[in-house]
């Protein structure tokens, strides 16, 4: 009967209750969708960081990452690459020679990160061959082919088959230069990455630098993201004189960014839930205050305080639960739709910050469960103040109210 009374009480003011449960539904949708959006954005960023920049873990000579000194080479790099390739969980290993170089065209000069790669290995690890938007992947030119991004091509006003000059320091500290012919333009949708990186064949670069078969960097792609840390640990023990780091530690900003995004999402969802909480408290307070006489009568005829409290709590929970499933359904539908079709942010600055222009929101079932639990807790919290207000009524005074 308490449930029946609570349920029917909600419908005493149809418009008011409808407004509240629509607010709950929209609030919940906004919270879940924001969460899914940032989640999707971060997942894509993580995928992008792993796939394009860091792989799951990398191996260097200690100190190399800080200054990219040409001398800090792993002389047995090829052997390490072969050893890691035999690991079951490993999808691909790319041994690179890396240095900062000056890229010059007829129109402009600027610094780039020059990656000397084995095209076959690199295509497995970063899939850079799949990002080509023009030209071919190290084909069509025999000597010194180079892949640059479309952004760099536009900036330096070069195109396929244009000649560019790369200038860098060799092992002895001498300035060396080589002319390279553009064979392909790539676009990874990650602005920062595209503006910095260019790719040449490792042999061509080794010849210029005079580093032979040695490597600066070994990037390893695994089958699963969650294995990165344990595998990095394992190889750190195998090669104690080298620096083996998982992607989260390689990209110093990433760990902080993930934590920041989690906090940001938490704050946004929190603000929405607090706003909803006050909206529900307000509605329930009105509902209690306009029924003072009725509640007084219920206490007069023998309804215990516990039951009065329960009646208000059940009423609040019913009100919340009318809106919550609608909000969750709305969220599920919109997240599923945009999770497939994506949200195109256009040419926004997101790409320059290393985020994709097209975001695919995603949310795990656990997140729906967590938010649902938060809504239940919020409903119970929202009920407490109005219920206490009801309990404080003295029946003898309440029944006299007009």
């Amino acid at each position, binding site marked *: 009967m308490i449930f029946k009374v609570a349920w029917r009480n909600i419908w005493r003011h149809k418009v008011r209750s409808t407004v509240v449960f629509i607010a709950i539904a929209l609030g919940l949708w906004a919270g879940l969708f924001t969460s899914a959006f940032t989640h999707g954005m971060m997942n894509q960023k993580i995928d992008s960081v792993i796939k394009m920049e860091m792989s799951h873990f990398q191996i260097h000579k200690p100190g190399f990452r800080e200054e990219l000194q040409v001398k800090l080479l792993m002389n047995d790099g090829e052997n390490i690459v072969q050893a890691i390739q035999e690991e079951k969980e490993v999808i691909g290993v790319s041994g690179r020679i890396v240095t900062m170089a000056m890229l010059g065209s007829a129109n402009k000069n600027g610094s780039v990160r020059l990656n000397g790669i084995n095209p076959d290995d690199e295509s497995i690890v970063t899939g850079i061959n799949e990002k080509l938007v023009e030209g071919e992947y190290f084909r069509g030119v025999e000597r010194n082919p180079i892949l640059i991004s479309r952004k760099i091509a536009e900036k330096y006003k070069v195109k396929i088959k244009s000649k560019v000059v790369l200038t860098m320091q060799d092992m002895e500290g001498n300035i060396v230069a080589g002319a390279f012919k553009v064979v392909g333009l790539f676009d990874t949708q990650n602005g920062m990455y595209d503006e910095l990186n260019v790719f040449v064949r490792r042999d061509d670069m080794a010849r210029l630098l005079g580093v032979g078969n040695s490597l600066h960097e070994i990037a390893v792609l695994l089958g699963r993201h969650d294995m990165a840390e344990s595998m990095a640990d394992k190889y750190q023990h195998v090669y104690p004189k080298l620096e083996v780091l998982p992607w989260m530690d390689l990209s110093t900003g990433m760990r902080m960014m993930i934590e920041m995004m989690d906090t940001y999402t938490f704050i946004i969802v929190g603000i929405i839930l607090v706003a909803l909480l006050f909206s529900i408290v307000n509605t329930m307070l009105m509902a209690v205050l306009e029924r003072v*006489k*009725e509640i007084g009568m219920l206490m007069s005829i023998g309804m*215990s*305080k516990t039951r009065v409290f329960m009646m208000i709590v059940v009423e609040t929970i019913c009100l919340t639960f009318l809106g919550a499933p609608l909000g969750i359904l709305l969220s599920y539908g919109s997240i599923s739709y945009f999770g497939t079709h994506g949200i195109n942010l256009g040419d926004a600055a997101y790409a320059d910050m290393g985020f994709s222009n097209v975001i695919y929101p995603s949310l795990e079932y656990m997140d729906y469960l967590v938010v649902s639990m938060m809504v239940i807790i919020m409903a119970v919290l929202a009920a407490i103040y109005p219920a206490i207000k009801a309990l404080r009524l003295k029946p003898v005074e309440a029944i006299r109210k007009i």
Partner: protein
Amino acid sequence: MKVIETINLSKIFEGVVPVHAVNQVNLSIEDNEFTAIVGPSGSGKTTLLNMIGGLDRPTSGTIKVNQIALNELSENELINFRLKHIGFVFQSYNLIPVLSAKENAEFVMLLQNIPAKDRIARVEALLKEVGLEDKMNNRPSQLSGGQQQRVAVARALASKPDFVLADEPTANLDSKSAENLLDIMHRLNKEEGITFVFSTHDQRVIDRARRVITLEDGKIISDVIQHEN
């Protein structure tokens, strides 16, 4: 047998000038009585009724209902006591607007945890008794004032209380509805021996009452048995 007994019962409302709403009232009401407490506005009749019903606590003195001293009960014990021993009829009906006549009358029994089968049988019998067998599923808004007050009487009786306290039960009713309601309560008193205590200034109620207690300035100034049942 004494159902209600008050000994030196007083209630003072504190304020700039303290008001002695009820002043040293000694009163006993027997089983099966049909008693009206009358008096002008501010004479203390509602306050006295509230204290007898355990809704308000006295400043001093004792109230005993079936030999149980109400002033010794805690707040929760009082609520439970009201649920089991006292039926209330209020001036403005005070039905639950979202429940039907049947559900309103049934509500008290639900609070008493009476099984559904017994509840339904009793509610139907009571609503028949007050002449509302064809209005059982109507909500208060679909009933007239008199009909609502009859539902309130059925609700007051549903818990099988020791007595029914009725605070100005006919004040909001037209004369036909008031007569009708009084007929019902009178019959319940005569045939089923239910004790009724009214606070009223309605002459129709006073005329029907077996015993009339008159209050003035919180004191009993007369206690008259008008006629035997």
